[in-house]
């Protein structure tokens, strides 16, 4: 199946800092989503972004499908942004392949 790699694996930020999380995938994709897994384990949809750029408040995402990567930007980070960020892709079929995640800790 398709390989999905995320970097960095771990990130520690001071509150108010900006960050960029990266997702690389090994094949063409039809769907890409970013999720935030909160400390209770819930997967929160952030973006459905198979291509292009989207923004939602302090978060934005860009997917360059032809170069097989996606970026998630977090600006002015807050402690509530802490958790694990996953990207997930769909190539053929109907299954998501999840990346290994970036664990973000925002300290006050």
């Amino acid at each position, binding site marked *: 199946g398709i390989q999905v790699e995320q970097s960095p694996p771990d990130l520690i930020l001071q509150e108010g800092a900006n960050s960029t999380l990266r997702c690389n995938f090994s094949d063409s994709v*039809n769907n890409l989503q970013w999720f935030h897994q909160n400390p209770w384990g*819930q997967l929160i949809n952030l973006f459905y972004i198979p291509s292009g750029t989207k923004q939602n408040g302090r978060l934005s995402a860009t997917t360059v499908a032809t170069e097989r990567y996606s970026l998630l930007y977090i600006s002015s980070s807050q402690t509530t942004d802490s958790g694990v960020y*996953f990207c997930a892709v769909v190539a*053929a*079929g*109907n*299954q*998501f*392949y*999840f990346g290994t995640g970036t664990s973000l800790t925002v300290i006050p």
Partner: protein
Amino acid sequence: EPEVTQTPSHQVTQMGQEVILRCVPISNHLYFYWYRQILGQKVEFLVSFYNNEISEKSEIFDDQFSVERPDGSNFTLKIRSTKLEDSAMYFCASSVLGARQETQYFGPGTRLLVL
């Protein structure tokens, strides 16, 4: 906003017991999915279900697992004889169209612990 719900939120069972995890997908959705996440690892696809049959399944989804849509609202995952390694968070998801075409919406998960 409509959401996927799952019950129970936590379940503890003895090895060898059968468990049934329940999900209520969003009402107008047609595609349903189960995923699992072993503690500290990434989320893994188990099975997708459309038009009352399995459309795709992973290697993890062996004969110990089964899915069913017993009525118009529920979608269940059954594990026939649980093993220690089945301990994980199980997520249900649903979408109107197939996963290639739009967002999948995930439920809050059921945390299963097999002793």
